[in-house]
């Protein structure tokens, strides 16, 4: 299978602190990594390196054959952050269409409508983002991240602020992207949701992967108990 995301020996330091310490991973098309860990474990830093937003202090990350942060690699990535990354004075449609334009999506308007509809927020397309609730803003942020149908979707706490309907739409969307051959990395504190989505699960602590395994067949209840012991 084609390796879509490859990270080798990633280290990232901030001053004297090693936020990421020798992390390696490889994900092929259709695979999903659920990344768990306590606050400050280095999950978001790994995600930012894989998105091309941060250069590793050592090691390298690749999307397909292209080393990050090359634009050709960044163009295949969709990023959902715990911040909305939206312009609150613009409408939902304008925000998503702007992202589509920057990614060179051929029919930006049609792709925008499709992305907003997938998150069930098409009826608010022409409302300024600042007038939307936190949950609806998160849906628009997700629509912005997927408008160019990325091969690699990186999601940092994507369920933040979503209600049950929004959460279900997001889960369906992530499953659909996986089935379409995208590789996913989902950072979450929700172990059950993460394990239900993922093909692989990893736990980070103090910048390192302290557990990495295939997620299929894992007992979520037992995993939760072991996780608590691991990060305690």
């Amino acid at each position, binding site marked *: 299978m084609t390796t879509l995301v490859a990270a080798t020996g990633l280290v990232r330091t901030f001053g004297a602190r090693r936020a990421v310490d020798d992390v390696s991973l490889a994900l092929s098309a259709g695979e999903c990594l659920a990344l768990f860990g306590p606050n400050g474990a280095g999950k978001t830093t790994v995600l930012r390196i894989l998105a091309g*937003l941060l250069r590793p202090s050592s090691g390298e990350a690749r999307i397909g054959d292209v080393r990050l942060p090359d634009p050709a690699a960044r163009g295949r990535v969709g*990023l959902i952050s715990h911040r909305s990354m939206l312009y609150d004075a613009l409408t939902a449609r304008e925000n998503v269409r702007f992202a589509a334009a920057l990614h060179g999506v051929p029919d930006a308007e049609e792709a925008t409508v499709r992305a907003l509809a997938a998150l069930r927020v098409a009826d608010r397309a022409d409302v300024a983002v600042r007038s939307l609730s936190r949950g609806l803003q998160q849906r628009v942020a997700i629509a912005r991240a997927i408008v160019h149908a990325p091969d690699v979707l990186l999601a940092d706490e994507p369920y933040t602020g979503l209600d049950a309907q929004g959460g279900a739409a997001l889960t369906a969307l992530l499953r659909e992207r996986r089935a379409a051959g995208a590789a996913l990395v989902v950072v979450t504190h929700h172990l059950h949701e993460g394990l239900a989505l993922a093909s692989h699960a990893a736990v980070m602590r103090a910048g390192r992967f302290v557990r990495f395994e295939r997620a299929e067949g894992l007992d979520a209840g037992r995993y939760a108990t072991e996780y608590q012991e691991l990060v305690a």
Partner: protein
Amino acid sequence: MRAPGLLAASWAIARKDLAIEFRTRSAFLSSVVFSLLAIVIFYFAWDPTAVGPLALAPGVLWVTFTFSGLLAMHRSFGVEAADGAIDALLVAPVARESIFLGKALANVVFVAGVQAVSLPAIAIFYNVPLAGAWLPLLGILLLATVGLVAVGTLFASITANTRMAELLLPVLAIPFFVPVVMPAAQATADVLSGRPIAESFAWLRILLAFDLVFVYACTVAYPFTIED
């Protein structure tokens, strides 16, 4: 899918910035009000028996444009910092130089808009004849604005995520504005005094050289300012 080239991406970013400003108008109105207040304060502090209007007006004009321009440039990266929108720009497969060029282009339009309101106000308050001077004046404004915006936009990017960015931006940028403001004010004084534009060519050459050097240097330097 083919990502847009440098100019297409710059244009998309500039259009987005102008759309945001057009929608909110907060920074534009603040800059215009600031400019008008500065012009009025200078007017009331002026002793026309000691200094003639043609000697004072060019200085007032460029002091006003410099500081109102800083308000615009501070705003340009503020909109990106609010909800982490800069990350979405940086993940997009466009050259990072296009972010700088797009921001700078929007800032040139913004500052030109402020100048379009402030210039007639200066003409009225200081009784400066603009009728025969508007074309050369337009050239001076354009050359000087490009230089001010290039430097100001770069420093706005550097200071955007710092505490007290409003204070830090002028402290860093104003020393670099001196080589623009001085020839711009001199050339403006020449033009407003009715001298032929040929007498100002030396000043215009300095402005042009500054523009060429700093637009290039700031564009190339910008990607390094956003590295974490």
